[in-house]
């Protein structure tokens, strides 16, 4: 017996073992499924079944078949078929650019039969273009006109502040250093209206001119939508009194008008003017005085 045939026998045996193993694990998979299923076991058995099958086929292809290498000649696509004309010539003919056919003479039934009516061809192109434009219009139905919607939120003059659970917020209930996510009453969960209510000490706040009465007793409210890419600015670092956006790590200084002090954001978080109503609840003095959230082209 020669070495080669002994090697081949060995490979054959190994492949046979692998295929049997593949079948057994496949049956195991069926049993696992029938008895209620188990994720890890399913993945393991399926992997094993597929893996042994794959190995068997690869080994078969590699060791038990004529190994080659085999040689095949290449041809340049244009030379592959000597009879074949270049497409460019066909196009020339079809459009009437080539005045004569390769065989010589003109042929009314040839490729240029359409191109011989240039006026009609022009009309055809025009009509097809108009149809194409008409076909684009339904895209407009996909969404509403942005209009001024990006400049507005649901905050209105006198809107009471409510928490995510729908509880009204009483003035002074928030302790110094705490933070609360609030919405206008009746609009809980609205993405663009989400606002952070933070209690700072009045003396600390560096109030901007014109905003002197926006933060009664150190209760200051900023839009929670990051001015960078729109994530909720969710992390309040109490000691440094900074807001951190967890998405791209922009830092906003709560004391200094939520000015961006680090990271990719470039604009302060808009501030919501607050007031206290007669019942002692916190209310808004109106909507934000600028568009909240990330920038967009129409924003002045």
């Amino acid at each position: 017996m020669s070495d080669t045939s002994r090697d081949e026998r060995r490979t054959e045996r190994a492949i046979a073992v692998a295929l049997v193993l593949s079948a057994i694990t496949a049956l195991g998979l069926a049993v696992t499924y029938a008895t209620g299923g188990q994720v890890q076991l399913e993945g393991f058995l399926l992997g094993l079944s597929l893996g042994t099958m794959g190995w068997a086929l690869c080994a078969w292809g590699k060791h038990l078949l004529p190994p080659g290498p085999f040689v095949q000649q290449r041809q340049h696509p244009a030379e592959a078929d000597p009879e074949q004309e270049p497409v460019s010539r066909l196009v020339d003919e079809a459009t009437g650019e080539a005045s004569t056919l390769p065989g010589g003479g003109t042929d009314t039934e040839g490729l240029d039969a359409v191109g011989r009516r240039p006026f009609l061809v022009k009309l055809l192109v025009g009509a097809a273009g108009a149809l194409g434009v008409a076909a684009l219009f339904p895209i407009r139905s996909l969404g509403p006109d942005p209009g001024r919607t990006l400049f507005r939120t649901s905050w209105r003059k006198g809107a009471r502040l409510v928490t995510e659970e729908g509880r009204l917020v009483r003035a002074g209930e928030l302790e110094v250093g705490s933070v609360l996510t609030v919405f206008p009453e009746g609009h809980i969960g609205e993405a663009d209206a989400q606002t952070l209510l933070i209690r700072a000490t009045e003396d600390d706040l560096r109030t901007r001119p014109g905003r002197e009465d926006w933060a009664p007793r150190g209760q200051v409210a900023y839009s929670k939508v990051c001015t960078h890419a729109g994530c909720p600015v969710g992390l309040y670092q109490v000691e440094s009194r900074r807001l951190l956006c967890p998405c791209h790590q922009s830092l906003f200084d709560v004391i200094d008008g939520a000015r961006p002090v680090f990271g990719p954001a470039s604009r302060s978080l808009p501030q919501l003017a607050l007031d206290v109503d007669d019942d002692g609840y916190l209310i808004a003095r109106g909507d934000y005085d600028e568009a909240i959230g990330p920038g967009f082209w129409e924003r002045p």
Partner: protein
Amino acid sequence: MTRTIKRANRWFDDRLGASGFVRTALNKVFPDHWSFMLGEIALYSFLLLVLTGIYLTFFFQPSLKEVVYDGAYAPLKGVEMSQAYESTLRLSYEVRAGMVMRQMHHWAAIIFLAAIVVHVGRVFFTGAFRRPRELNWIVGCSLLVLAMANGFAGYSLPDDQLSGTGLRIAYSIALSIPLGGTWVAYLLFGGEFPAESIISRLFVIHVLLLPLAILGLLGVHMAIVWRQKHTQFRGPGKTEDNVVGSRLWPSYALKSVGFFFLVSAVTALLGGLAQVNPIWLYGPFRAADVSAASQPDWYVGWLDGALRLFPGWEIRAFGHTIPAVFFPGVLLPTVSFGLLFGWPFIEARFTKEDVRDHHLLDRPRERPLRTGIGTGVITFYVVLFFAAATDVLATVFDVSVTGLLVAFRVALLCLPPVVAFVTYRLCKEAAALPDEEDAAPVVVRTASGAYVTGHGHQAGNGGDGTPRADGLDEIGSGPRPDAH
């Protein structure tokens, strides 16, 4: 049995007359090299994505309608969530084999993108994109873009906290497109974020539109490979005018199908044993909530990193704003893919080499400049990728996020040129060394049984397309395919 098959063959042959094509097809020669299998991994991952994906569509409900959860996963019982999130939980925990299918689907997507990226790298560094293959380079790059888009769309479907945050950022990037940004965002989402229709639209995009486009382009991609024949590395008997390797039938087909099973096996093992995207830990999406360590799937990491590293430059002029995210979110991808798509033409312009066809591949070291540029560019995107994890890295290594971000900004600007230069020098030196393969002595047994020692293929390495003087071409090249 065989008679039935023969009769069926005859039946089809009488109607289609395909025997000639089938014969050439079965005898078609494919060169063997491990790096030529990267594209195959991508192809097989796509097949797996389709198979597992179809299964998932039978259970997933692409709807933002709010429901109260009452399923098998105890920690979320009683929580309000969208049907999309609820049905994902259900297909994971209550549908038998659902979890394995969903995790295999996600792992296959990760592998799909990885295989494409490495495949693009292989094609780039070996110069396989050169004339006449520029067209297929463009098709391949389009496949990369479509695959990324579809990966992101699929990742966004379950409406969990993490994917919702990703969508929010995508919406902001759409807003930042100059002139028509707000319109693009509103038409895409169907209104202001978070619009009601986004999940059902993404579903159609994810299971129909993009897969169809990918399938079509895959067909074109492989048809062009078939037509132009595969490239090959230099070697004995290999010239610009031939292909040396295995025939499609039987050995290449068997190995290839076997390889499909192996790729599936790895995906199945990962799908069963390695947890991926555990959406039940993130919770359902709430617009006002966000979790720390918000990161996209790996192939979007470079964009997220760019959003973190780019300084807050927001330009306001003439009553308009160019948003800060425009530069990393719109301009950077546009330039990146522009350069990627255009590379064959850029290179041809500078090397002025595209006057003839190239079928023999470059070794990376033979093209120091291209290889240097390639490694430099890869470094750039790798830095961006790791920058997407600054918050996690800061926590793990207990350093300040701010310091880390500054370090990453410096690395982003300094590392790529350094890596490019080092690669360039290394290639130059490696190219100057004697070629191992060419220098290695080769013992040849002649027809009469005598042994002759020669030196590789110094006699004419075949690379220039000239026949070898010593007639070694015929040795080991086996029977011509048309002899079978």
